[in-house]
């Protein structure tokens, strides 16, 4: 179920990237796409009945059934990369607004 939702989110994000002309909306579509991918990655690691992969005083041995920790580590990296790209994109948007006076890609003339 969650995999269907994540793939749907990715498709919504791609649709947004194909059709939107407003720079801010493009950045939002990019974020929706990234959320879809990140949720999909986590869902690949799910084990039914598994518990969170941390040793605590209750779950104290490594023989219990844990969910896959590797996709979680990958998602950590992917989220941070998404944040970096979003910050850079917003800085671009701000400079473009200063240069062209608009947030709409179609209205920005010049080369």
């Amino acid at each position, binding site marked *: 179920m969650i995999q269907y939702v994540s793939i749907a989110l*990715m498709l919504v994000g*791609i649709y947004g*990237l194909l059709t939107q002309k407003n*720079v801010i909306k*493009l950045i939002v579509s*990019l974020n929706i*796409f*990234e959320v879809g*991918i990140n949720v*999909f*990655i986590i869902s*690949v690691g799910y084990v039914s009945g598994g518990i969170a992969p941390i040793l605590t005083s209750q779950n104290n041995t490594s023989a219990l059934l844990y969910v896959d920790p*590797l*996709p979680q580590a*990958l998602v950590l*990296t*992917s989220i941070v*990369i998404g944040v*970096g*790209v979003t910050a*850079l*994109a917003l800085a*671009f*948007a701000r*400079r*473009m607004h200063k*240069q*062209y006076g608009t947030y709409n*890609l179609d209205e*920005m003339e*010049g*080369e």
Partner: protein
Amino acid sequence: MALDILKNPVLLIAVPLLLAFLAVFLKKIDKALLWIAAVANAASAVLLAVVYQGMTVVELGGFKPPFGISLVLDEYSLIGVVVLNVLFALILLLSGKLVKQYATVLLVALAALNGIILTGDLFNLFVFLEIAAIAAYIFTAMDKGFKHSFNYLVVGTLGSGLYLFGIILLYNIFGSLNMFDIRAQLQAIGGAGAETLTLPLVMIFTGLSVEAKLMPFGGWVKGVLHKANSLVGTMIVSGYALAVLLAVGRLMDTVFQMTDAVLIAFTAVAVGTLIFAEASAFSKKNLREILLFSSVAQAGLVVLLFLYGLTVPAVLVLVNNVVSKFVLFTVAGRLAHALETDDIGELKGVFVKVPLVGVGFTVAVMSLIGLPLFFGFVAKINALVGLFNAGNVWLPLIILVMAVVEGAYFVRILTTLWNTGEEGEVSSRDNLKAFNLDGMKGLGVVSVGIAIVIVALGILPVLNIKQFFSVDFMTFVQQLLGGM
């Protein structure tokens, strides 16, 4: 013991990264740090080539692959690393004045490009691709081209996301993220199972083709490069093209197990890129636009060769293209900067004023087209012969036709730029009169130096036919004539 540490390929990545972190708060010496890193990397790469004894796998953190990340230094990545680092040092030498505040960005880009070539882990490749891409988004905006860099950012991030989706599917199937481990698992089942891999491979190919400049995803190239200065332009068409296409080749060699339908689809994309880009280059009048479309076409050709398993010819064509484009784009960028135009008609006869540069440019062009006696000829012959041996007739035909088209527009450029026309035409351009020749001397010397290397590499094989050709040339000619 100290020499052992110096021979570790990790330093090619770690040293520029460390200097980048230092450069951000030691702002006064950031350009010096950039120079130190470039020279150190170039020297280190050459050292690695000299002491190379066989494939080295560097385990990071001490954990064996596939459990840890590994860097792989074999002949394939060694060539890439040497060419990349030497070219980067040369780019800096010729365009160093344009760096301004972007020294940190270039340091990070250098580290990331080395990482792309060396890594043996799929997710690590994703991370390094993102680092290099973000550095590219930043330095392509150098001359206030924000709209084009933003477009590049959006398309590039979409591509990376699709690539990530693809490798997660591979992890789902194989349980590992290491390229060589997946190859071993594929070999263990003997080449079956290609249908399941269709979706991940399509995603990976689409994602990488954005950065590799294949059409239709490479639409960002025109916007970003048509007004690029010599630093930005050469970084993208030489450094980035080399690293990304070598990564594509590595993936195709290890992970790609294609069904016939998938192979045909990918071939169509590569051939389509080749034809579309050469046609576009033919119709353009601006030097930089022609060069960028030529780069796109070469990318399509290299991917085509990788698809059919012709790794050696592909690397030869790639290195030839990258070195030639370095010379061509530096010259184009510098001319455009000095004369404020890169329309060929307005650049008429400029090489007569700067003959050294003109000679270097001409040699690079001839190598790119693939004329005999130049390195490009060796590369192209290997490619065509390899494709013939694979039983394919249409592809070499298309490549030859496209080579003719390429030859046509490049010869047009050369005749215009060397043409003096009537005396009045040349001297009436006030800019040409006030043309500053001093800045071009260094460029001239380096271009001629590279030209000599290109010619040497082109002549040597003729002297040693059997050793350098993948097929004995004489037998091939006999087969061809006999078969008709």
